[in-house]
């Protein structure tokens, strides 16, 4: 890639920092060139997040239908799975599977709720209500 061909389509990262790209100068020697982002990458990230958003919405609906507890919604929203959540909370996977039942979730201690809330970066009230706004 030639230096002047390094794309400059501003990405969400591009607002915070430019990225280093390796590219060639007029005589074919490698040098570095800052890039603010590339359309192709922005689209790849966008379709990935659109897909995550769909899963978040589906999970939300299942919580509203009382099929699962709000933890299912936050798992999708945090792009986690039960393994990762088990790592961060310190709960066993079987415990988390229990906590995913609405009836069990309602009886969870304040301490356990606080643990989940911290991992999901929300307050306990937000954890219960799913009423969160994107930062």
């Amino acid at each position, binding site marked *: 890639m030639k230096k002047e061909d390094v794309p400059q389509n501003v990405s969400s990262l591009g607002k915070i920092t430019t990225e*280093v790209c390796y590219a060639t100068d007029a005589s074919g020697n490698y040098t*570095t060139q800052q890039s603010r982002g590339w359309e192709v*990458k922005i689209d790849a990230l966008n379709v990935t997040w659109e897909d995550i958003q769909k899963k978040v919405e589906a999970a939300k609906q299942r919580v509203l239908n009382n099929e699962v507890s709000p933890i299912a919604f936050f798992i999708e929203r945090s*792009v986690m799975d039960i393994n990762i959540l088990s*790592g961060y909370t310190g709960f066993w996977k079987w415990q988390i599977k229990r906590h995913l039942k609405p009836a069990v979730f309602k009886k969870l201690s304040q301490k356990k709720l606080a643990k989940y809330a911290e991992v999901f970066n929300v307050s306990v009230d937000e954890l219960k209500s799913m009423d969160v706004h994107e930062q």
Partner: protein
Amino acid sequence: MCMNNNFEHIQAAHCESGVTRNLLKNIGINKMTEPLAFGIGSGLFFVYIPFIKINNGPAIAFRSMPGIIFKQTCHSLGIHVERKKFSSREKAQQFLDDRLAEGKAVGCQVGVYYLPYFPKEYRFHFNAHNLIVFDKEGDNYIVSDPIMDQVTSMTSYQLERVRFAKGALAPRGQLYYAETNHEVTDEQMKKAIQHGIKKNVFNMLRIPGPIAGVKGIRFTANKIKHWRDKFGLEKAGLYLAQLVRMQEEIGTGGGGFRYIYAAFLQEAHAYHNNDELLKISEEFTKSGDLWRTSAVQAAGIYKGRLGTQQDFNVMGDYLLEIAEIEKQAFEALSKLKWQ
């Protein structure tokens, strides 16, 4: 506290080669550059692991195992490496604080999910990111993240969270630093470059099985041609988006690390006066360019502009062409005459 005043933050394309260069410069190895660290550490790779899923998509990597670049670069140059993992968070912090008090700059493996300065869109559960901590002011750690153009900082809570990220490749507080009491000679650099290339030739041409190296690229090419039938258009598009993210996202320098490797071969030429290196470097530029052309094709599919079986065939054929270019290039490297 005795602070590290000499530390210089230089932005890099790839986190691990950037950390390696910045740590080595900090202990006086001024010859080190990012491409040299990448090449001496045999950073270039390709692997597609079909039985693992990452974020519901294919597990594809364009670079070698995390940790190899730093380890191999230091090892080849006779530089001592100290590396430590921790089971206790308190001990992990104490150990880091003690090294900072000695004036050392320390590399840390971290997860990006809770990195406070990354934009939300980039925060996945990826645990093999590298950064350097080189100072502490009150409760704030001063951080040189090679991806960022500026020095940043994290509170002790924030740093602990990313050092003890969970999931695949959990860093477990892992930190590392290099120590040496001698300058690196040109002779050592020459040997290290030669060793790095030889190992990279092995990784790309001679690892048994179909999923790694040049064979892995061909394997992926043939898989892609079946993705449309197997998964349907939408999921196949998401798979291609994941491929492109692994190839082009922050930390690759563009073209799936192929451009950094081409830059490395040019720099290697300054040590080994062999013009073949320059010619082979051009081949890697060609390969990087073709990886980017294939990314444009993939984007056409995941954006919905393209979508026929023929479009997937074209995508697969790009990868077959790339595999051929890289095969020839690595074979040429394996036949190089070293003085």
